[in-house]
Structure formats: structure tokens, C-alpha cells
């Protein structure tokens, strides 16, 4: 099972000091977070993509390319890549490029984005969100799998004799997860292709997450990719830890109360009771995270959000230390126990390459 960090890249004033980091500071902090994640033995770093303040990560592959050069082992991913407003041709190119630079340590989570004003900036309409995700991804798959593509669709100018370069590393496209909080159409899309499904699992009560995953698993089996238990599921989660639970609550409360997304709404206590947010000791985080399996089944990837709402970098790095030293080793052990024997790991470049070569050998060469 993979464990990692995902960030949305918000530039938020620290509510306890009133200080706002510069964009440069925040971007460098995200990079430091990724390096720290590798240092403490986490498996994945994923960055969000946004095109409006107060967020900085508008160019995920630029950032991930830099991190690739500074790391050895960690998988570089996104949370999420906007399949609606980005040109699928550019996604195909950018991520193939990143694959080569990062020696295959790349996958991506596709999402639609939820901010109405962003769509028209890219010539799109939010009401077409699902349709854009469907058509753009169908094209993206072809660009990675066919050397020469002729294509015509609703949302982009036609392509004739187009070759997306560079070609995917070793002829193996990056693994794709489809992320959605509440749209069954996207769970269906992930199932249809046998891709992964990622639920951010942060803002919504767990039974919403459960319904989405159940639908994805059922349809994954329906489309013949394996049993429901073999479907590839990723979850988010949000934590803040201190040795003493009351210290964690006291320190995190001002950040929670003023957080851009849910601040000024429910209390920290209500939100903790209703959503997967855990504020407390590493033991409490372990306990809560293990409970995700009760509604998600055996799953492949767990990403934690630790760096938003104005938390200072020093604090965030302490959180990652706690994850790497105390939380994740226990989670690895506990999740491995009683895990279904035929539950696969999350696909990596190596595993996809092996599968690709096995298929190529099995198929007789056309003469």
C-alpha cells in the first residue's frame, strides 16, 4: 500500500500571526514538503492544480520535474490534474515528458475542478464538466497509446496525423486515477477503463465516500477488470498531530476556524465527528485511518493533507516527520494484516511495464 502527501497549494495568511507567505516562499515550501516526504519514507507526493489566487500551483509538471531531479524514489502525482480545462494534447505531452525525466515515477489523478470562473478563462463552460472529462480523457488515452492519431470531437479542434511527443516512457502511459467527490459518472468512467478511483475523503461524511467507492468497485467488476476487491482505490485524509491530543486541538483550532474551504462553518469538533479529519495524537490518526478500510475495503493509496490553511512550513515538516516515523510504519503493518490475498498493489511504472511486456509476448506478431 502507498502512503503520501497531497497539497492544494493555497497561500493563506497564518491566522495566529497574520503573516502571509510570498508565492515564492509557498512554492519552495511545497518542494521542501515533497523532499521531506521522500526523506521520511513516504511513497507519493501529489500537487494540486489551480489557476486562481490564493493558489500557486498552476504548472504542476514544472514543479514535479524539479522535484524529480531532487528525489530518488518518491512517486510524483497530482491532486488533481484538470481534465476539463486543460487541452488533453498538452496533458499527454507534459506527463510523458515528466515520465522520461523522472524515470517513470509518475502518475496522475484527473479531476474536473469546481470553480465556475476558471472554465471560461480556458474557453470552457462548467456545465460541460462531465462531458469534457469524458471526451478529453478518451482523447488523452489515444494520444498515449496510438503513435498517430486522427481525431474529431466537440470540445477541441480536430487532429489529423498527430503524434504526441515524447511518446510515453517504454511505451507505457502513466497510471491514471479519476478523482470525484460526488459524481457517479466519474466512478463509472474509472471502472470502464479499469483505471484507479480516488476520493478526496475530506469534506464529506464517510457514507458519501462509501457509495462512490462501492459503485466504482461494482462497475470495475462489471467491465471485467477483476473482482470488486481488486479495483484500485485511493483515499485522502486530513490530519494534525501532537503528542498530546489537547495540544493538537488547541494549536490547530485557529487554522481550522479560518480555513478557506470550511472555516467559519461547523466547529472543529463537529467536523471531526462527521468527516475523516483527525486532530490528535499519532495513535488517534492511526486508529481513524485504519477505520477507512471499514467503508472503502482494502485499498491501494492513502494521501494526507497536512499543509493548508496557513500552517507554517516548520509545523508541516513536523507533521510529516510524525507520519513517517510513527504513523505510516504502523499503518503499513496493520493494513497488510488480513488483506485479501488477491488485492493488488497500486500500479507503478515497473508493474505496468511488466504487464505490457507480458501482453506483447503473449500476442503473436502480425506478419
Amino acid at each position, binding site marked *: 500500500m502507498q502512503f503520501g502527501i497531497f497539497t492544494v497549494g493555497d497561500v493563506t495568511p497564518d491566522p495566529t500571526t497574520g503573516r502571509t507567505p510570498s508565492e515564492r516562499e509557498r512554492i519552495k515550501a511545497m518542494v521542501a514538503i515533497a523532499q521531506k516526504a521522500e526523506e521520511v519514507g513516504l511513497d507519493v507526493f501529489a500537487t494540486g492544480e489551480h489557476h486562481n489566487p490564493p493558489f500557486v500551483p498552476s504548472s504542476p509538471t514544472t514543479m514535479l520535474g524539479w522535484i524529480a531531479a531532487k528525489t530518488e524514489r518518491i512517486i510524483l502525482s497530482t491532486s488533481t490534474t484538470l481534465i476539463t480545462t486543460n487541452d488533453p494534447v498538452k496533458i499527454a505531452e507534459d506527463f510523458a515528458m515528466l515520465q522520461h525525466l523522472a524515470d517513470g515515477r509518475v502518475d496522475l489523478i484527473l479531476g474536473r475542478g469546481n470553480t465556475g470562473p476558471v472554465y471560461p478563462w480556458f474557453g470552457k463552460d462548467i456545465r460541460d464538466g*462531465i*462531458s469534457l472529462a*469524458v*471526451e478529453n480523457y*478518451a482523447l488523452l488515452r489515444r494520444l498515449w497509446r496510438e503513435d498517430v492519431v486522427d481525431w*474529431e*470531437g*466537440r470540445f477541441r479542434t480536430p487532429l489529423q496525423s498527430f503524434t504526441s511527443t515524447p511518446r510515453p516512457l517504454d511505451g507505457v502511459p502513466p497510471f491514471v486515477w479519476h478523482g470525484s467527490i460526488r459524481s*457517479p*459518472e466519474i*466512478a*463509472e*468512467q474509472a*471502472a*470502464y477503463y479499469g483505471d484507479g478511483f480516488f476520493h478526496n475523503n475530506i*469534506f*464529506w*461524511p464517510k457514507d*458519501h465516500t462509501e*457509495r462512490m467507492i*462501492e*459503485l466504482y468497485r461494482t*462497475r470495475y467488476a462489471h467491465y471485467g477488470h477483476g473482482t470488486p476487491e481488486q479495483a484500485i482505490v485511493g483515499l485522502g485524509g486530513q490530519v494534525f498531530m501532537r503528542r498530546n491530543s489537547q495540544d493538537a486541538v488547541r494549536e490547530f483550532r485557529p487554522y481550522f476556524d479560518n480555513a478557506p*474551504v*470550511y*472555516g*467559519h*462553518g*461547523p466547529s472543529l469538533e*463537529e*467536523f471531526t465527528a*462527521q468527516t475523516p479529519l483527525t486532530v490528535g495524537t499519532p495513535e488517534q490518526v492511526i486508529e481513524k485511518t485504519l477505520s477507512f478500510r471499514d467503508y472503502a475495503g482494502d485499498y491501494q493509496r492513502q494521501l494526507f493533507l497536512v499543509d493548508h490553511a496557513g500552517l507554517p512550513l516548520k509545523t508541516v515538516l513536523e507533521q510529516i516527520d510524525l507520519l513517517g516515523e510513527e504513523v505510516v510504519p504502523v499503518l503499513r503493518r496493520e493494513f497488510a494484516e488480513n488483506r485479501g490475498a488477491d488485492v493488488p498493489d497500486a500500479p507503478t511504472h515497473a508493474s505496468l511495464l511488466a504487464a505490457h511486456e507480458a501482453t506483447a509476448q503473449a500476442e503473436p506478431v502480425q506478419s
Partner: protein
Amino acid sequence: MEAITLAVVSAGLSQPSSTRLLADRLSEAVRDRLADAGREVLIEHVELRELAHPIADNLVTGFPGEALRGATETVTGADAVIAVSPIFSASYSGLFKSFFDVLEQGALTGKPALLGATGGTARHSLALDHALRPLFAYLRAAVVPTAVFAASEDWASAEQNGLRQHIDRAADELAAVLLRQPARTRRPDAFADVVPFEQQLAALRLP
């Protein structure tokens, strides 16, 4: 036969509240008529005052907390809804509107509904028709023709200035609709009825 469920939403703020009083009078009148026709009735109250915080939280976070979810399920699952708001500043109260704002889209489509409102004087009574009725038309509820307004003076007079007759007529209308209505049909479920992906793809194919 299955009991008919009435969800009674009232947005009164004081205790006791004349809005709740009107909601009770309306729901009891409907219940009596249905009982006369041999139907059992289950009345479920949704007091919005108690949900003021959860409703505001839902506006901020985009999802309902547990208490609010129970209330929205009561309303969307009922056979009919009786909705009563005090009239504030020439319209329904903000709390009343916010509750209907956080319901899932389509939650009230085709739902038989009876509307009521309360206010200090009868001068506000047309708010029923220029504010509440358009809201429920937008929500595609099947609103009965008679809506009932109760002003302070209605509660004070022995004759109730025709309030009783209004309640009776409105209750007659809603009861008649409910007695005519076939058993509740299942609302479409986006999860159980997911559109197969081939269909999603085909819908985008160029002619």
C-alpha cells in the same frame, strides 16, 4: 395500506410560534380528512429554528451534517410537504429559503405541497403568492391552489376572520390530491441508475 407521511416544515422563531401554530392547524386538518377516508397519517415536524446552525454550516461546507440530513430526508421522503414561513421584509424568512436552498436538486419535483405564512398584519398576505409560490414552482413541487396566511388579528378574533375556512379549503385540496395519488414512486437514484459509460461516450459522438 401504507401510512401517508406529511413533512411539516415551519420556520417560526419564537416560542410559542404562530408559524408553528398555523403549521399544526394545517397538518391536523389534512390528517383528519385522510383519517375520514380511512388512511393512516404520519406527521413529521421539521422545525428550522433548531437547524439554523446546521443549515448555515451546509451553506459553507457544501454538505449537510447529521441532524440536517435527517430533516432533508424527512422532507424528500414524505408524501407531501406543508411549508410555513413567517413573512420578513416582504418575503419568506432567510432561514426558510436557506433550508430549501440546501436540498438536493430535484428533491421536491412533483411533491404535493401546501403553503402557509404568518405576519403581523394581513397586508403581507400576498407574499404567499409573490414569494413562496414562485419558489416552489421553481422546485417543481405540486402546490395546491389555496395557500393560507394568518395575521395576528386572525388568532385574536373568535371568528378567526375566515382563517378556519381557509385552512379547511387548503386541507381539502391537499387531502384530495393525496387520496388520488398512486403509491409513491421511487426517486431516481444517480448511483443505482448510473448511465453506462458507453452511453456517456455515445452522447458526445459527432453526428
